[in-house]
């Protein structure tokens, strides 16, 4: 009988202690951010999808060696390059990342011999179709250069045909394709 009442007493006491904690934290300010209105700052080292690094001279550093393409376990990266006639080096004409397959392992960034790729800081990445995540990184790099106020200039190897690198035709996704 005594035990019975003791248990009730202990039980109620434990509930009151819990209530006290709730009351204490209830008066504190909220710790959640109200997402669409407030955004949490992105940490600097956040690993988003990869991006080509834009140099100060307004170009990328890729030498089209294809190491990243081979290192990627999911086959997300497709490189296109041409070797202009008479030129010594190959030229990158398209760098496509299929982000739908990327698992952000970081192998591509780590194997690149010239540090031509980096992680972007795109935290709030959304799209309505999977084609929205097929990025043309070369195109993105050009846009990034534009935003940074650097003119996209191709280093001239031979004094002939300083042609703009072409972004691939079918890249801009049509929303109807969903």
């Amino acid at each position, binding site marked *: 009988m005594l035990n019975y009442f003791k*248990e009730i007493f*202990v*039980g*109620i006491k*434990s*509930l009151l*202690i*819990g209530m*006290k*904690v*709730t009351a204490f*934290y209830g008066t504190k300010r909220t*710790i959640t951010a109200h997402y669409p209105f407030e955004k949490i700052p992105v*940490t*600097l*080292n*956040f*690993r988003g999808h990869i991006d080509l690094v834009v140099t100060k001279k307004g170009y990328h550093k890729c030498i089209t060696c294809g190491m990243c393409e081979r*290192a990627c*376990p*999911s086959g997300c990266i497709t490189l296109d390059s041409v070797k202009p006639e008479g030129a010594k080096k190959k030229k990158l004409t398209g760098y496509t990342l299929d982000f739908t397959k990327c*698992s*952000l*392992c*970081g*192998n591509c960034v*780590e194997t690149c011999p010239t540090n031509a790729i980096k*992680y972007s800081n795109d935290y709030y990445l959304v799209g309505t179709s999977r084609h929205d995540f097929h990025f043309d990184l070369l195109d993105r790099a050009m846009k990034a250069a534009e935003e940074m106020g650097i003119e996209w200039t191709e280093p001239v190897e031979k004094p002939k045909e300083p042609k703009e690198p072409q972004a691939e035709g079918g890249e801009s996704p049509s929303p109807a394709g969903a």
Partner: protein
Amino acid sequence: MIQKPDPTQETLVLNMGPQHPSTHGVLRVVLHCDGEYVLDAEPVIGYGHRMHELIGEVRDHRGFYANVGRMDYGGALSFGHGHILAVERMLPDLEVPERAEYLRVITTELNRVASHLLWFGAFLLDLGAFTPILYSFDDREAILDLLEHVTGARLTFSYMRVGGVCADVDKDWCDGVLAFVKRMRDRIPMYHKLVSGNIIFRKRVEDVGLITRDMALKYGCTGPVIRGSGIPYDVRRSEPYSIYPELDFDIPTSERCDCMGRYDVRWAEIEQSLRIIEQAIAKLPEGPVMAEKVPKVIKAKGEVYQAVEAARGSLGYYIACDGSTSPYRMKIRVPSYSNLSILKELTRGILLSDLVAVMGSFDLVIPEIDR
């Protein structure tokens, strides 16, 4: 084998899952109930099978980095740790820098705390208490922020590399971790006040799901499940790896054998993890975080079994390599699988609501079981 319902018996066959909130993923439990009592509970697994072992066999060793985090979303770093330790053992020339080992341990222990906090919230959610998960996610968020700073991800980390780790930390980060350790220590009494003493909670978990010593051994339970039955088995002590032998920590056990025992063990483990983190930060040596001569193409040869202590128990990687770039065979022994196998025997004749408590106390991660 799933029992066929017997029409002459007045039992009810109930499918719990695969989309039941308290099965934490896609686990299906076929229940034979008599009223509210469970006569038989048969777990059916495999709904989330993604062939991680086979993927490990067709990809090179580096290609598997991303998969480890997809197996155990709660404690991805310890899964990565086991994998790279196994591969490194097959590469005798590789000298892993001290600092990298320390960083591996610090991040893994932080991840363990995060995983236990996730379990704590989910366990109480299963029992019908909604608020505790909000408290534990507050703390977990702090850990994830710290881990995001160094690994770049919040959940499916791929931080461990053969030969080291992929990112170094700075002084600020270490201070942040120490600040977190202090904060977490201050918060633990709050959790105990809020939940551990609560009479409703205690009534739900005390003397429910008794796993005796023999039973735990027989089924190969590991982690907090076996330690909750009073057996101090922890891979970090029994098969020491990495820098754990240099650190001072205890293996908490509980003699209770019930859900409460496992609950206590996990809280004590959080405290021990905080101790490990503190010591490792204090001892953190300077130097590189990546070995100098990591082969460009990893061609391992040999056969290893490397066990590590994941958040849910003993995790083992068996990797056999024939000298080519990818393993010949990879087998992963996951803790939740063995822990779940005990369910059938354990839940015979208990109440349906207790079954949820028992499953919650196992801290099951289904993707890890299915692999």
